[in-house]
């Protein structure tokens, strides 16, 4: 087992990883930018290293600083959290060369799944259902037009190196393809440094269902059920739940098996998530695979009893996973609300100092946060203040519990998304479990 793990992240996920390490008796190293000097993750870790000024490019994304920090502290492993360098294959390679174990999959797997067009092609070869579309990136507009004609409109033009909604265009009319293609290409080039575009069938009202995977280095790959993540604004998730109200146990078994097949096709190790789009007919299609622990992992932990971060650390250290598919059971229901420092209507970020902070407790409640009274919410990083997570014996109980928790959460000094979450939970369609990725539009 590792002696010392460096956590290459900040905020709530850094606290999460430090927590797992403390329970396992592993020493922890926190890295921080000058803006995060007084952060909780720094306070809770055994050792700390300042790695740069506030800007992420010069600190949390600055590979030399992180490698140096691992060197001077003698860390034998590094956990990248999510975001930042978590899916940077080059970073994983440099760590490997410096003999610091990257807690995550191999650089090859990261690279393969990071290239969205390549991932699609790899999955198709492995027999995983993918949306009809181009084989990899298209050469030019006329190829895009040809494919669109073949698979039928509407289509989505997507950046091969992209994510987060950038470099994407929906085309509903054939006459728009040319213009949209050039626009998507330019945006992709600017955002990701590559103008490669691929074409995919566009589903009108899909649900975003993802499957959590965990794989060890001894050939065991297991899925831990599904999460429903359709409540998104501009491709940013806001509220997630497990299990999905739209997925029957039969469909869950099928999707889980497909996700495992996807992971095995790339010799996957560690935690990973396969994202699918589910259409009205109950057909599902591979969208992408995230080769990291995800923000919303707590809902899966709540319904399965698993500790995914500890599992990540254990499998990276070469231990066998210790459980098999038949040992995974889904019990009750869990919901997570991302409490962001944002205006609940305009979504404009609301940085500042939190003067008053109280989180609820009681049965079935979990709060993952690095916030506290008098802490500063900086403009340099994402706006997540806290993840409010509940578990109930039924979905109805989980909803009631979350409503109670939202009422009993106090965050003063910055604006938060709490009012929006309360409206979501009051919404009849949400309560009935019938919603899709366009759900949040009704609150615009």
């Amino acid at each position, binding site marked *: 087992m590792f002696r010392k793990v460096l956590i290459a992240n900040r905020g709530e996920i850094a606290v999460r990883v430090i927590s797992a390490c403390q329970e396992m008796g592993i020493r922890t190293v926190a890295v921080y930018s*000058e803006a995060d000097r007084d952060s909780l993750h720094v306070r809770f870790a055994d050792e700390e290293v*300042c*790695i740069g*000024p506030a800007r992420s490019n010069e600190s949390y994304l600055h590979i*030399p600083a992180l*490698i140096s*920090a691992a*060197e*001077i*502290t003698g860390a034998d492993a590094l956990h990248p959290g999510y975001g930042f360098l978590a899916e940077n294959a080059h970073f994983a390679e440099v760590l490997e060369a410096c003999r610091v174990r990257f807690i995550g999959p191999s650089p090859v797997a990261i690279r393969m799944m990071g290239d969205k067009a390549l991932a699609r092609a790899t999955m198709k070869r492995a027999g995983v259902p993918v949306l009809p579309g181009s084989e990899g990136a298209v050469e030019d507009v006329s190829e895009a037009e040809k494919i669109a004609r073949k698979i039928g409109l509407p289509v989505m033009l997507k950046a091969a190196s992209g994510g987060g909604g950038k470099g994407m265009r929906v085309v509903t009319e054939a006459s728009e393809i040319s213009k949209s293609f050039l626009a998507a290409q330019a945006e992709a080039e600017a955002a990701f440094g590559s103008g490669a575009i691929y074409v995919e069938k566009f589903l009108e009202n899909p649900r975003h269902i993802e499957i959590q995977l965990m794989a060890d280095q001894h050939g065991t790959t297991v899925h831990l059920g599904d999460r429903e993540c359709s409540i998104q604004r501009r491709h940013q998730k806001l509220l997630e739940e497990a299990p999905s109200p739209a997925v029957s146990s039969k469909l869950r078994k099928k999707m889980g098996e497909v996700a495992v097949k996807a992971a095995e096709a790339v010799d996957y190790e560690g935690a990973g998530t396969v994202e699918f789009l589910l259409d009205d007919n109950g057909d599902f299609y591979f969208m992408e695979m995230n080769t990291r622990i995800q923000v919303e992992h707590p809902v899966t932990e709540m319904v399965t009893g698993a500790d995914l971060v500890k599992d990540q650390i254990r499998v990276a250290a070469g231990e066998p996973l210790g459980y098999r598919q038949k040992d995974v059971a889904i019990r009750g229901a869990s919901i997570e609300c991302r409490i962001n420092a944002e205006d609940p209507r305009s979504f404009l970020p609301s940085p500042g100092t939190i003067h008053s902070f109280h989180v609820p407790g009681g049965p079935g409640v979990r709060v993952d946060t690095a916030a506290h009274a008098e802490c500063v919410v900086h403009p340099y990083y994402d706006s997540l203040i806290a993840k409010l997570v509940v578990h109930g014996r039924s979905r109805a109980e989980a909803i009631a519990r979350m409503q109670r928790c939202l009422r009993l959460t106090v965050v003063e000094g910055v604006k938060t998304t709490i009012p929006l979450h309360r409206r979501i939970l009051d919404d009849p369609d949400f309560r009935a479990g019938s919603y899709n990725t366009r759900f949040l539009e009704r609150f615009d």
Partner: protein
Amino acid sequence: MNLSELKELLELITEQNITEFEIEEKDLRVRIKKGGEAVNGVATYSVESTSPQVAAAPVAAVHPSAPEPTDEGLVVVTAPMVGTFYRQSAPGADPFARNGDRVQKGQTLCIIEAMKLMNEIESEVVGEVVEIFVDDGQPVGFGDRLFSIRES
């Protein structure tokens, strides 16, 4: 190395008046440093530095974080990067800068080693070295105080 061997080692070091000692074995690294520099209360400010490394392998010249003068006309040089601080170019060589030395602008004050690259940290000012805050071989983080120089 077991506990009694470690104890013996510590006794030996004390006996021989060794101030600094490091040994690395398969599963163990021991580093012992005796004494330290007294830090007097010089007010310090560290301003964000964005100067990139000019790498000429294996030695690179690095601009330190822009120092800001204190009331006493003391300029504090802080670490522009994470790494290991060395006072001299190689073990056994003379230190680049001692207490009381006059330094010129652009003169190398120390080396910070990171990822096997030796980065020379240069003085931005002309003056006299008043204090050295870090011991040779100590790890430093971004923004850590290294030297204070009385600007002339």
